[in-house]
């Protein structure tokens, strides 16, 4: 949609849009271009020499069992975080939408964790679940359960899933609550008068009307779990024990920054970029009318 009335002249608008364009160019397009270029090169072990190798880096990655393992792990991790964070948030939102005393206080107390950094949520949950200093972690061990996410890979994965989901519940809660509040009272009242009971009403009225919100949140949560949790995982387990909690982003970081394998790391970046672009495209395809004005 365009405006009818506009101002004349072209120099001023060009100057106004320039800072954004320059920053976008320098810090988005240039690095993205360089990633694509580096992904098709290989550095010699010792020299300065850079060879063009075409698709070799990609072929190597797709044939590398470690990379595929990390990809599968990332998918499982993202799915678990999204389901946990969205499920909890939906349950809380349904109850927060009811007319109870103190509901505004409840809302504030459920929204504040939005402000917690992903890396901070790791630190906070450490004090609950660490086997040595954590309150619950110590209790689990006293109860005879062998809980130590520093040593046990499955427990480590569970731990990073919980820490990542914990932080994201608030964000989902805000959106689910807004979605629930936008359902006209008349619709739920009509269902109530038709004799639809709580659960039935929820399933037949609320769930379909929340579908767009749910889908939007699913994409946001998947992207969050795939990328923003770098801080959480790095602070809690560094991707370990072994590589048991190493998601694709941690692998890009380890291969590129720590091991200086620029070619492979760039190829991994390019694959991740394609993944994000695909997710965003899916979102716009299905939610186009909501996001575009």
């Amino acid at each position: 949609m365009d405006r009818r009335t506009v101002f004349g002249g072209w120099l001023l608008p060009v100057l106004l849009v320039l800072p954004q364009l320059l920053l976008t160019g320098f810090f988005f397009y240039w690095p993205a271009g360089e990633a694509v270029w580096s992904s098709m090169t290989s550095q010699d072990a010792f020299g300065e020499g850079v060879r063009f190798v075409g698709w070799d880096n990609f072929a190597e990655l797709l044939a590398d069992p470690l990379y595929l393992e990390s990809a599968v792990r990332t998918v499982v991790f993202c799915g678990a975080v999204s389901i946990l964070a969205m499920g909890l948030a939906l349950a809380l939102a349904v109850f927060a939408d009811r007319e109870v005393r103190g509901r505004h206080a409840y809302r504030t107390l459920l929204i504040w964790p939005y402000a917690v950094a992903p890396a901070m949520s790791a630190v906070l949950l450490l004090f609950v679940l660490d086997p040595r200093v954590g309150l619950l972690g110590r209790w689990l061990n006293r109860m005879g359960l062998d809980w130590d996410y520093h040593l046990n890979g499955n427990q480590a994965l569970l731990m990073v899933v919980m820490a990542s989901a914990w932080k994201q519940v608030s964000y989902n809660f805000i959106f689910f609550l807004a979605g629930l509040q936008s359902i006209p009272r008349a619709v739920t009242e009509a269902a109530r008068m038709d004799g639809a009971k709580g659960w039935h009403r929820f399933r037949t009225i609320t769930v379909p009307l929340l579908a767009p919100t749910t889908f939007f949140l699913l994409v946001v949560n998947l992207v969050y779990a795939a990328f923003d949790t770098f801080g959480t995982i790095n602070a809690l387990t560094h991707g370990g024990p072994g590589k048991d909690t190493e998601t694709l982003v941690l692998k890009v970081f380890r291969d590129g920054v720590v091991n200086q394998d620029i070619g492979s790391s760039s190829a991994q970046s390019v694959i991740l970029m394609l993944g994000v672009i695909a997710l965003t495209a899916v979102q716009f395809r299905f939610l186009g009318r909501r996001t575009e004005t």
Partner: protein
Amino acid sequence: MNRKPDYLTHAVLALGVVLFALPVWLVLAGSTQESEAITRGDLSLIPHLSGLPRYWQVLTEGTRGAEPVWHMLAISSAMALCIALGKITISILSAYAVVFFRFPLRKLAFWSIFVTLMLPVEVRIIPTYSVMAQFGLINTFTGLWVPLIASATATLLFRQVFVAIPDELVEAARMDGAGPLRFLRDIVIPVSGANIAALFVILFVYGWNQYLWPLLVATDPSLDTIVIGLVKMIGIDSDTDWAAVMATAVMALLPPVAVVVLMQRWFVAGLTEGEK
């Protein structure tokens, strides 16, 4: 309507509140106790008032191997403010240009900003680092915030807001002889106040919570943000001064949580209207 309190609702909501509050309470209580007790697992759930001076000590001196907390808080605050205000400023300017003017390549300019919506920092870590090195921005404060202020999301949001400004208002302004910059300052920015406030909250939190970016471009400890510093503190293998870590964590949480809670009304409205 039934008068009986809805016990189930209170129970579920209270459980949710505890789920979020428990870790913070633990950290708050622990920050006032002795590190030896925490290491032994004797953490009491009741804060000891006698431990409050620890906050002053951590704030001014810091702990072993870390910058003083006041310094890390200053870096984080400056970074979060620069990112929030920088993003808002350049996004308002670019959205204003795209909405209120017709200039060559306008559509291309808009689309080339729009497309970057799909590229989070995390996917272009390495190449961005090499670009940063060419600009000499590694280990500088500028490097911490300037590359993060380009924003497709904010530009899109302001575009939506500006498109909704009635044509009559623009015509009236032109009739009064107001130029485009005066119109921006006197009309457009004031009517977007609520959106700017909401975006400020979202971006302040975004800036404060950065982790991967500072980890990558600022290895100099004097540029450590509070989040980076805190993760470094828990990374020490033995002899961690847990009470100091907990006091630092409390201070790291306070500013962004305060911003969200105090500006909750604008923030929630802005978030759900603009979608992200």
